[in-house]
């Protein structure tokens, strides 16, 4: 019997659905399966996955790693002293190396000089509160959580000036927290279009 949603359902209401309802449920179900399949499929065939190498790390230990990284690959001037930009050390790691980047109220350390089409393992962590890694202008985003090392295998596929905009609220200086990555084209070949970052 026809009734509205605010009237009690009488008798046996466990009846077969209308044909149109069945059609829609079947189509919606099939679409849901497509939605589900796309994610594992992109892990196999796609070039952008947020998997990374994940580990716990004490903030102080991570800071030490950043310092070692700067000592190893830091850019030095004619006198042999570390080049600083706005007080932040500039680092030029070789392709294939582990790169460490730390968020701290309200700066990203260090400044990175990378090569186009080279792969790096970019370790992200925070010294204090949550920060957000947003790559300007290409809109790539990762969460930066204190106590956790997020090691992402990154291949810059465009050259030029990039910024790291903090996009997780981290206190009153949040809007000033901007870092810099410079990518130079050294003529490395582009990674294969399939699974380039795997």
């Amino acid at each position, binding site marked *: 019997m026809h009734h509205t*949603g*605010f009237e009690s359902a009488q008798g046996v209401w466990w009846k077969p659905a209308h044909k149109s309802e069945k059609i829609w449920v079947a189509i919606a179900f099939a679409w849901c399966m497509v939605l589900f399949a796309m994610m594992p499929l992109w892990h196999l065939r796609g070039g952008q996955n*947020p998997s990374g190498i994940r580990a716990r790390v004490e903030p102080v230990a991570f800071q030490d790693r950043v310092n070692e990284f700067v000592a190893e690959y830091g850019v030095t001037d004619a006198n042999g002293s570390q080049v600083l930009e706005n007080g932040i050390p500039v680092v030029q790691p070789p392709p294939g190396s582990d790169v460490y980047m730390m968020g701290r109220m309200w700066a990203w350390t260090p400044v990175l000089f990378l090569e186009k089409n080279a792969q790096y393992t970019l370790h992200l962590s925070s010294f204090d509160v949550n920060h957000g890694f947003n790559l300007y202008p290409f809109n790539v985003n990762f969460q930066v959580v204190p106590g956790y090392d997020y090691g992402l295998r*990154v291949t810059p596929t465009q050259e030029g000036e990039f910024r790291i905009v903090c996009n997780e609220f981290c206190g009153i200086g949040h809007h000033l927290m901007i870092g810099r990555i410079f990518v130079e084209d050294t003529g490395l070949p582009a990674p294969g279009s399939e699974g380039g970052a795997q």
Partner: protein
Amino acid sequence: MTGDGGVVGRWAHRICPTTGLKVHTQADRLIRAHAVVATVSLLIGGIAAILVLLTRWQAVHLLDAVWFYRILTVHGMNMLIFFIIFFEMAILIFAGPVLLNCRVPAVKTTWAGFGLMVVGMLMVEWMMWTGQADVLFTSYVPLRAEPPFYLGVILFAVGALITTAVFMATLVVAKREKTYEGSVPLVTYGGITAAIIAIITLVHGAAIYIPTFLWSIGVMNVDPQIYRLVWWGLGHSSQQINVAAMVAVWYMLGGLTVGAVVLNEKVSRTAFVLYIGFISMASAHHLLVDPGFGPAWKIWNTSYFMYMAVLASMVHGFTVPAGMEMGMRLRGFTQGLFGWLRKAPWGDPGFSALVFSVTVFGFVGGITGVTFGTEQINIIAHNTLRIPGHFHATVVSGTAMAFMGVTYYVIPLIFRKRIAFFKLAKIQPYLFAGGMLVFSMAMTFAGTFGVPRRHWDVTFQGAAYTVEYSPAVDLLLAITAIGGLIAALGGGIYILVTVVSVFFGKPLPAGREAEFADSIPQGLLSQPWAQIPKTEEEPESPWKIGPVPGTMVLVFIFLAAFITYYFANWKLLSFAWKVG
């Protein structure tokens, strides 16, 4: 109280002259109290919304940084926690005692729950306004607020749990006292769904805010990643209470405004069960680009067990309009594919609110949400303006719009008052949902450029490096602000209409609805639900695709939009740096 009331059995009640239901006087009072506090929260959150808007509109940039984040915290807490949950408690008291023709089983306990919620809310407001909780809605540890902030949230959650438990007790009492025949109405079933999700949610709230409170007074540690995991069990799941409650209200408003029928109880109820089973996994939507979880965990959880909760919403997105079409066709509006829509009562604010709620929730909120909640696509969405663009379409023009629409019926039915400024009320849904639609779309597009959410100054004045977004972003942020201000005007009208109607409104004498056609929604005059033929016969359809051809066309348009947007985002993602 008007109506033929009395003390029959053990409880004081009145008989609703429109529906014939017995309404417990205490249910009336409880609904009123919850609705009043909900409206106060809406007013505070709405004023905060205007201030936030006028700051993010870079040309105006009203507040300084300190007050921007403070007011943003106020906006989030009042809208997403206080307004929504107070309103949902009112819905539970309506869907339980009122619709089941039953008394409120534990009156004092329910009032105690209400009292705890109010005390908790006042503590949180005090902390926020005095600058002792500048931690935003999410209060991610180790950002720290003063202890009373966390304690306030805990008290609020416990109060809401008590009211939810009383709702559950109502189901038992109503069954035992045989106050209704057959199975509970579908709307109540949706209410039960919301209540179960509320319990899951509030338990998560307790599980995270109690340790965080202890952390704030220095007696234990809280891991920032675990915090994010459990907190979102509260933060996202509370939006799933909204979804379930909103869908229940859709069925309610459909019946009230156009005599919508339930096409098939089995299908609609199964969809609600899918919500209960899987929707709470959505905490993962916020953790897709976090370091603490692996791909298998992310895929499994973000997809709510292979998108079963999305399937549920797609089912409701069909059955709600289909029920409306069927109801209209059964009452003789059989012309063509969309004759039923053309002849629908567009001047009834309950109806227009319903239509906006369903379409904006589905087309904007739903499609963007599922797309951004895809593990990899989240890389180009996380923490950008795409996220608030998405959830304003769901929570504001979806849930809040539906709740506002049902208020235009609750005022005459529960409060027995005529609607004040009814002409304004008629245009209110158009302003509110229309403004929010513009707001959400402009904000989502701005987010596509990578513009961060929760950010005081996206021109980055005084920062070490320059960042300059495309000029399109300026335009989009201005459109966002203008859309938001139109919606705020709609929200203001809602508050004006409800407050004046409830506190200073003229009474609606029983049985004299026809005399007040200019101040009550159309559905109460025509009572379409009473004109549905009580048969099994289906309306004739000129089309081969069943009795609801118009809805079939609409849902296929929806599916086409969904597929287009979803794959466009994969394409966009493929342009990003290689990362894995």
